[in-house]
């Protein structure tokens, strides 16, 4: 237990400078831009004098390092600043939109893990069978298909032509009572199954789009891991001693292959998050991804900074959790 804490602390210390570096880069980009953000906010009809007043109000006329330090200080207090566009605290905006992205990402992750790992195992077991070849085509495609195009094609087929799923958005009408912000969870908790079903139908296509590359990666890595483990001496021993094959595969081989897969899940998260930005754009999903893109398009630099801080922090936490999970999964690391 103590060792886990030590590990956590060590990783945290390592990532703080990384996060700081990220902030510096983004800060510099956001302040040193060809277009003048203040002028944009002030609007086209503003006079130069009005623009300067606004600049002074926002504190943008101070030297850069001073602005940065001030930003850090406010960040420490939990104040991410105010969106230049919506004039609302950025933290509020982010918090409001976070559950949508979480729901999408988690569902996509679940789909890819629950489908990907068994498929990867079967692909390795039945090497060069029809299933294996089909899966390998899928795997290669998964990493070659443009996410946004896949989403559009799915919309074309399932929404427009077949009418099985709605076109976009998260839910028609009113959301269920706001307990967690996750519609599926909230609907289930309040026994509102109609809304649950609607939310699920809305989630279907975006989650499928997002999950596809993740699924492909997982199948590929699990397959490679299982193939690798199948060469092990302990598998030979278990075969020589006549243990039933399903036992060897699903208990012993899978466990060994999974230890390397756990680290891949961290990677997976990166893929999912990157994909989320584009997927949300295609399906009009009201999450953080669309917030980031629209902030960028509107040159709302405060919001961009806020998003960057949030994204960086999430990555650090996820990496940390993956490291911890890896330690838990592999008892050799635990014991030493």
């Amino acid at each position, binding site marked *: 237990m103590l060792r886990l804490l030590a590990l956590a602390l060590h990783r945290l210390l390592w990532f703080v400078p990384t996060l700081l570096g990220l902030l510096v880069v983004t800060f510099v980009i956001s302040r040193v831009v060809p277009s003048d953000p203040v002028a944009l906010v002030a609007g086209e009809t503003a006079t130069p004098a009005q623009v300067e007043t606004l600049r002074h109000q926002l504190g943008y006329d101070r030297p850069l390092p001073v602005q940065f330090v001030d930003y850090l200080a406010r960040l420490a207090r939990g104040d991410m600043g105010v969106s230049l566009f919506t004039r609302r605290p950025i933290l509020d905006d982010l918090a409001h939109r976070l559950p949508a992205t979480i729901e999408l990402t988690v569902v996509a992750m679940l789909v890819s893990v629950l489908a990907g790992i068994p498929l990867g195992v079967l692909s390795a077991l039945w090497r060069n069978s029809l299933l294996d070849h089909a899966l390998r085509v899928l795997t290669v495609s998964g990493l070659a298909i443009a996410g946004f195009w896949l989403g559009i094609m799915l919309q074309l087929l399932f929404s427009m032509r077949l009418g099985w799923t709605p076109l976009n958005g998260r839910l028609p009408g009113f959301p269920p009572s706001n307990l967690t912000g996750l519609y599926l969870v909230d609907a289930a908790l309040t026994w509102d199954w109609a809304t649950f079903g609607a939310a699920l139908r809305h989630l279907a296509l975006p989650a499928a789009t997002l999950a596809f590359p993740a699924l492909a990666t997982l199948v590929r890595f699990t397959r490679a891991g299982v193939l690798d483990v199948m060469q092990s001496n302990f598998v030979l*021993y278990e075969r*020589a001693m006549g*243990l039933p094959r399903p036992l060897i595969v699903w208990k012993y081989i899978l466990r060994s292959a999974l230890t390397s897969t756990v680290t891949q899940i961290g990677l997976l998260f990166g893929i999912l998050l990157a994909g989320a930005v584009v997927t949300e754009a295609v399906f009009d999903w009201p999450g953080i991804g669309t917030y980031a893109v629209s902030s960028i398009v509107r040159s709302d630099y405060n919001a961009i900074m806020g998003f960057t801080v949030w994204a960086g922090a999430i990555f650090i936490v996820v990496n940390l959790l993956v490291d911890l999970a890896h330690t838990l999964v592999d008892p*050799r690391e635990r014991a030493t």
Partner: protein
Amino acid sequence: MAELLAVRELRVDFATDRGPAQVLDAINLDIAAGEVVGLVGESGCGKTTLARAIMGVLPEGAARIRGGEVRFRGTDLLKQDPAVVNERVRGQAITFIPQDPFTSFSPLFPVGTQIMDLMKWKSPRARDAGRPSSIFGRYPRERHKADREAVLEILRAVQIPEPAHALRRLPHEFSGGQRQRLMIAMALLPQPDLVIADEPTTALDVTIQAQILRLLRALVKERGVSVLFTTHDLGTAHELCDRVVVMYAGQEMEAAPTDAFFGRPAHPYTRRLLASVPGPDGVIRDIPGEVPSLVTPPAGCRFHPRCDHATAECGVERPAPRMLAEGHVVRCHHPVDAPAGAGE
């Protein structure tokens, strides 16, 4: 003497980049009940392949059995339904002690879990009472208890300290010698007829090797179990085996009771091999020439290119097995000091 195991004319090929390698060429081998047989030979002579062929765990896809029989208690295992062989023979009538005990355990599960998984399907009580039909099948409480008792008892017999605690530990927490003792225990728990031990002490320190081997011999003799024991170390073969068989390049050359093998070797290769063991005078007497390629092996007796006694017929036809004395069989056209008139 009824044979427990009789291998006849076994041929095994391995697929390589340069074509099929004829790793085993019409091998014959006999093991009687309760007998400890040593299979000696240089690296690459095919001993491990033969062991794996008997167990039926040759690498799928890379190895192919071209012909021959593996008769165990009268039935040819190669012609049996593989599922039946897997259920009743492997891990039950024939068990295995691997070369490297460290990598032969799954590193992620406690030793006890792995042993009890073996017992669930292979213990004598499972054989009698009928095993679970699927991997989710139940492990009846009484059987589990009885099996666990048997496990603890044999762990004491192989001198593992504190057996009950040991079961909860992971493989890497044991020493090399202890791991091999665990392997010996696992090989004996199903009460097999035959144990196949593939170079069981190669991965261990020299100081421990003798200890482990003596333990193994004591235990199998106690239980009347046969052992096929492959090794490249003549010394251990001499100490532990009732009979010794020597192989070269995929062919068996000579088989004899230990005294006869070391005292009156008949095959030129055997004599050279025994002579090459460093003696007190420190002179190195190695065998000139090189081990042949198995992709394009020499015809006839594969040792003939390096043999002093070879004649033309040695390169044409492989010698048939010739019995020189009780239990002493040699495959050579010109065995050394062959008693006159002996033949089969």
